[in-house]
Structure formats: C-alpha cells, structure tokens
C-alpha cells in the first residue's frame, strides 16, 4: 500500500497517466479546495479592487480591511431561506445549479498547474475543456426555463445566444494555437501538457510566435473569453439594470452561491486555457532569454518573496491598527495571518519544496493576472448593447479568427511552400 503511494512520486507524470487512484483522488480534492479558496479570494479582491477603481473603500468592517468579508457572505448565504418558486419546475430548478457547478469544476481535471501537477493528461485536453465548459450553458438555460419567470428566461436566452456565437471565435483562436504545436514535431497535440511542452521545445510562448499572428489569436480569445463567462462588458445575461439578475433571479441562498461559485470557477478555467495555450502554462517568464542556472536560482526565490511581501503587508497593517481594546482581536488575527504567510514563505525557501511547487506558482500568477483583467474591465467598461455584442462576435472576432487561422497555417507551411514554388519555377 505504502509502496503504491510512494511509487507515484518517482514517476514524474500526472496521477492519471501513472494510473494511481490514490494520488488522483488527492489531486482532485486539492483542486476543489484550491478553486474554492481562489473564488473566496476573488470575491474579496473583486469588491476591493472595484471599489478602489471607483474611488471608494470597499468592505472595511468585517476583519481588517474587510478581509473576512467573504466568510461573512458565505455564512449569510448558507443560513438564508431556500426558496423554490411555487410554479417552478422543481426538478429542473433543483438540478440547474448542480449542472453548472459540476461542469465548471470538471474542466479542472485537465488543467496543468505543472508538469506533474494535473489530475490527468488527456490527449484531447483542450477539446474536453471547451466541451465541458460549454455544457454549462445547458445549466443556465435550465435555470432560466425552470424559474417560470420573465427575467430569468430572457437572461438565459441572451446567455445561450451569446455563448454559442462566441464559442466559434474562441474555437478558431484555439485551433490556430494548436496548429503551432505541430511546427517542429509535425504532429500537433490537443493535450494541455503537450501544448506547454511544445512551447518549451520551440523556445517561445505562442503569444510571441509568428508575431503578430499569435498575439492576434490571443486577443481574439481574450475578448471571447470575457463574453463566454458572461462578465462585464458582456454581462448582458445578468444585466442588473435590465434583467434584475438574469438567469438566477429566482435563486437564493445556497443555490445562488453555487451559481456564483460556478461563474468564478468558469472564469478561472478559461483563464487557465489562455495561460496554457499562449502564455507558456507553468513555465517561468523568459526561460530562454534569461536562461542559465543563475537566473533559475533568482526566479526560484520569487514564490517565497511573494509570500514575504504579503506577510510584510499584514505586519504593516498590524502596526497601523488603532491601539485600542476594540481592535485587539483584529490586530492579533492579522498578526497571526501574517506569521502564517511568512511561514509558508519560509517553507518555500527549502529547495526541495520550491522545485516541486514553482510551476504551480507561475501558473497561478498568470491566471491571477487574467483575474485582475476581468475586474479591471468590469470597473471600466459600460455594457454593450445586444446587437453590438452580436456584431462584435460575428462581424469582427469570427473573421479575424478565421484570417489568423489561415495565415498561421500558411506561415507554418512556408518552408514547404517556398520549396514547392522554387521547384515549379525550375
């Protein structure tokens, strides 16, 4: 038994590939916990960053700088009355949030947080992610339909129309990235890990490949993924000023929080697709430009450094806390939190740990950047009208995606093409 558990550690593959059920279960649990924690953090960060962008302060009361606000929210949602409208289709109403949450979490099966840090490596990884995440639309339509109410139905109709039309542009952008994986080996791959390894072997992230083609494909994807996850400025399905809350208007309490969880984990999932396909997945920045053991060494300190900076921030907060009895609990709590963060940083300084965890760190940093972009967009852009949304999707992104795909294919075939042309000329 112990041999079975320890045996995996030396394989250097994902638990799925090694066929190790124990570690696969552990990884799945870790991913579920990790994503939930990330959603909690996002909840706080979104409210805080959005507030600061709008020259407000955001949550300040629950814990120091509102740090405990997500927990207060979660508690409120859990103890809230669970209402099912009288005329709702009970079974469908009940299953809609389940479908949405399940699809959102299932996509994380193939997300590679590192070479060995994925639940499994499917040879159709990208296809699997796209397929499963589009199943989420089904849950949204179910929610809108079963609520038996006008606003949810309108919201879910909008959502399905939007998701279907942006799926195409997204798919085209992804295909052009997949085309790039076949450049040196001759055989392309849809496996998420394979795509990152292709970028490693070609010594460039695909966003810089065939400049500006890789960047254009990335831009198409980056716009389409905002629409795909129903976020501002494409948040028509949940347009507050028009549709109350869109497809989840009739939901409350825990069911509503499942929709919330699903929305944010879907955002994380599409961001990780973008990171894997164009930003080199778990690779550290500039692996070939700033290569060599010295740079490796320097970059390996960054994870620990991040935690130290966070810990220092916490300690600064403790020092600046008003020195009165009412704030004593908060001060102690923040100090403990800072100490914990510092401890994590210290653990990350151990070479054995940092080697194994570094790739996760870089992946998370890149995904966090996308999450920040999501918030930034929401704080800046007004909502599109529905016809504008459709126009952008069908008349701009789709042709651009197609053009980029064809151009990428031609550029990739350049050696063969030029050889053929010279052959014909001779």
């Amino acid at each position: 038994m112990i041999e079975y558990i320890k045996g995996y550690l030396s394989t250097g593959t994902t638990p799925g590939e090694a066929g190790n059920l124990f570690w696969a279960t552990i990884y799945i649990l870790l991913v579920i916990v990790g994503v939930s924690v990330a959603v909690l953090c996002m909840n706080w960060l979104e409210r805080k960053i959005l507030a600061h962008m709008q020259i407000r302060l955001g949550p300040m009361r629950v814990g120091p700088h509102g740090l405990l606000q997500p927990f207060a929210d979660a508690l409120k949602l859990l103890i809230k009355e669970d209402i099912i409208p009288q005329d709702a289709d009970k079974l469908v109403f009940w299953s809609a949030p389940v479908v949405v949450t399940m699809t959102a979490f299932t996509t994380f099966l193939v997300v590679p947080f590192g070479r060995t840090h994925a639940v499994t490596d499917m040879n159709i990884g990208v296809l699997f992610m796209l397929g499963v995440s589009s199943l989420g639309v089904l849950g949204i339509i179910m929610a809108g339909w079963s609520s038996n109410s006008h606003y949810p139905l309108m919201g879910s109709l909008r959502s399905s129309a939007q998701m279907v039309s942006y799926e195409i542009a997204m798919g085209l952008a992804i295909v052009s990235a997949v085309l790039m994986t076949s450049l040196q080996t001759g055989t392309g791959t849809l496996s998420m890990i394979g795509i990152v390894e292709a970028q490693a072997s070609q010594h460039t992230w695909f966003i810089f490949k065939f400049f500006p083609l890789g960047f254009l494909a990335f831009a198409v994807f980056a716009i389409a993924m905002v629409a795909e996850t129903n976020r501002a400025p494409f948040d028509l399905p949940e347009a507050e000023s028009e549709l109350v809350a869109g497809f989840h208007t009739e939901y409350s309490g825990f069911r509503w929080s499942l929709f919330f969880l699903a929305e944010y984990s879907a955002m994380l999932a599409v961001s990780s697709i973008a990171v894997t396909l164009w930003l080199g997945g778990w690779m550290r920045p500039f692996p070939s430009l700033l290569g060599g053991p010295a740079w490796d060494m320097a970059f390996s300190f960054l994870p620990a450094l991040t935690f130290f900076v966070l810990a220092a921030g916490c300690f600064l907060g403790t020092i600046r806390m008003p020195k009165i009895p009412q704030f004593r609990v908060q001060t102690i709590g923040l100090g403990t939190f800072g100490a914990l963060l510092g401890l994590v940083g210290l653990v990350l300084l151990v070479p054995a740990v940092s080697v194994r965890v570094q790739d996760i760190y870089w992946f998370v940093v890149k995904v966090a950047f996308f999450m920040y972009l999501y918030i930034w967009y929401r704080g800046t852009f007004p909502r599109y009208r529905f016809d504008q949304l459709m126009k952008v999707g069908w008349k701009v992104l789709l042709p651009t995606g197609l053009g980029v795909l064809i151009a990428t294919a031609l550029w990739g075939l350049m050696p063969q093409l030029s050889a053929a042309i010279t052959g014909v000329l001779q």
Partner: protein
Amino acid sequence: MKLTSLVRKILLVDLVKGLKVTFHYQPPSEAITEQYPLERPVIFERFRGQPRLNSNPDTGESLCIVCNLCALACPEQLIVVKGERNPATKRKEVVSWTYDLSRCMFCGLCEEACSTDALELTQDYEMALYSREGMVLDQAALERGQEPERYAK
C-alpha cells in the same frame, strides 16, 4: 480622418484610455469615502440641527426671557414656554420649556424670532432615536445639548 478613426478602433485606443483612468484611481488614498463613526464630517455653520437653549456663560442664568416669540413663530407650534414673574427681580423666569423634536422641520424661524439669542439651532446632527419618547426636550435637555456616544478612537 476616417482612416485614423479606423486605426483607433482596431487598436482599441479608447478602451485602453479608459483602462488607464481606472488604473490610476486605485491607490486607496484616492478614496473619498468618509469612515463616518471614525471620521466625523465638517458641518457648515449655517446648518440647522439640534436646538439648544443658551445660558449666560458668566452667571449661568438662562438667556430666555419667556417672551413667547419663538412659540408664536413656530409654524408647527411645537414650542411651549411657560414662565412666571419673579417678584424679587421683576423678571419673568422659565417654569417649563418643551421643544417637540419629532415634529420639527428645522426651518429656523424660532431662532430668528428669539430676541436674546437664547434659542439656537446648532450643528449637531445625531438626533435619531429608537422611539418617540425622548423626542420632546425639556429645558434641561435643551441646555445640555447633544452628547453623542463617541465611537472608539
């Protein structure tokens, strides 16, 4: 001109400009939110809030001469002043003074009518109560003024 606008559209110049604006607003020091119980707002001098009966700072005697002008001026007739002439000093002195805050609309007519500057609408604004009791202020309450519970700081 047409071409430049097209290029601007393609390069998403306007969107980037908007992003720049929101990005620069981010330092928390930019926030204009007032943390009310911790920080208290500066109230303008002409603000009309909690009424107060002034007394002579030297002698401690009430400035009110029970002329009843404020009660007459009040459109809501919420001021009731009763006084008695003191035979020794031959001056009218207050027997009872009530001010029904629950009906007051802070028009300030009473303050203007007062010939001795005894009645004054101050800048204190924390007048919310949990019930109507305590809304009718007597002379002692009016002279004491407001003592809001200070938030710890």
